[in-house]
């Protein structure tokens, strides 16, 4: 019967593209905002 493809952790009904937050082929969760490296203004790199 194959897999139930709705259980692979992808929101297949999302109106937006999935790839920008795609968690990868072995992850059943999309990336959270804190997982996504972002080109922030250098001043934000406070650490």
């Amino acid at each position, binding site marked *: *019967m*194959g*897999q*139930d*493809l709705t259980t*692979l*952790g*992808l929101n*297949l009904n*999302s109106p937006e*593209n*999935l*790839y*920008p*937050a*795609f968690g*990868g*082929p*072995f992850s059943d969760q999309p*990336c959270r905002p804190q997982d*996504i*490296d972002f*080109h922030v203004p*250098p001043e934000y*790199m406070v650490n």
Partner: protein
Amino acid sequence: MEDPPGLISKTEYLLKDWVNIYHNQVLNRDPMKVFGMFVGKMNICGILKTDDLITRFFRQATQLCIDVVYTNINEVNTMPTMGKSKCFQWIDAFVRLIALLVKHSGDNGNATTKINLLNKVLGIVVGVLQQDQEVRGVAFQQLGYHRLFIMLFLELSNPEPVLENISLHEGLSQQTVTAFCHTYHLIRPCMAPGFCYSWLELISHRVFIGRVLAMIPQQKGWTMYSQLLMDLFKYLAPFLRNAELAKPVTLLYKGTLRVLLVLLHDFPEFLCDHHFGFCDAIPPNCIQMRNIILSAFPRNMRLPDPFTPNLKVDMLSEISTAPRIFTNYVSNIQPATFKKDLDSYLKARAPVTFLSELRGHLQVSNEPGSRYNIPLMNALVLYVGNQAITLIRSKNLVPNMTTIVHSAHMDIFQNLAVDLDNEGRYLFLNAVANQLRYPNSHTHYFSCVLLYLFVEANSEAIQEQITRVLLERLIVNRPHPWGLLITFIELIKNPVYKFWDHDFVHCAPEIEKLFESVARSCM
């Protein structure tokens, strides 16, 4: 040839120095000044004197980073966060050095120097990876290479103020993507099976997908990406031919499904354009994975509900449009003499011997399960079908149960249906069913072909096999291609096919119930 004496110690000294610079945040305050001073040190060490020395430096430095991984591998496995952080401290610093050297090599206006250096470095890492895999075998660790490739790609993908004119930036980023696509093709799973999980991560990374499929103008990255997916399907194929999948295969297979679902959702036109090549590589028993690809349809297209009563498929505006096929499938029709005979038969329905020799060209062995040349079968079916559509169109007709018959093209299809054995006919019917996709001229024509072969079959075995080929594609979990649904609905609904009269429809209670449930959802 051996490295010149002292090179390894110089490389180690320079790399350690750079790692300190990178991690002491010194780099962040005035990156160009710090980088310039470090290049001065490299010069003093004579590293930049010749192309050969630069190459050796990069190979040594790569090896040093990989050695750090193996040195810390126990900690990586027991305390991943700590262990990996040690490895990544070195690798991330080395990557930044490579990225700065690439971006600032040659003068700013010249992307070629930069890309040449990038390709050199990527080639060096590939060489180290392949040698490492050969030497260590199952002890090979993918971690270091994984980190190197992805962080270098991300570094080079970051918007770069240095490269003033965007066109250079565009050009560089397009060539950067091309360089990485070539590199990933070189370390495809067939060549580096120990790297296959990382490889799938790398080619499906959100930034990489965005770059290759969305950012490069005019979809120029699509063909390169289709090549990488072909590499994946070819690697998986032998493992997927067996219904019971070993765990390592299941993981890679499920990962592939996730990537295909993202592509189906975000880039359906990409799957539409390259479906033919993918169906050549995907084993015929991978029904659901193939259905994902065949279910793709252009986003601007509205598909009528296949269950709409009295749906007039031939009235749909898109039904006469030929789909884009980006695979050069005609080149699979070999040998050239066969192609010549085929063309002459299509033109003049002669020589008649062509039909009786057809099976001989398609059958390549007597080994059950691999008797036939599948790419040739697929190419032959599509080529003959395409020729038929062109001929029908040239008479200002549309494909239907009248216009597709009594032609050289249908002779060939009927011959294949009658003359091949069970296995061959299954592959032939699959080649036809693989064209049942979204509303287009191929879906329409091949739907008529299947239905015609059913109604004209001279044995119930053929009708049963046509039903099986359609049914096995329908009973798997979604998605299901639109063209498959409308064909099956027509078969069970239109009394001209006498579908319900056949014994095989009632061969088992659950099969009968299944047909009835599909029938109910149609009525």
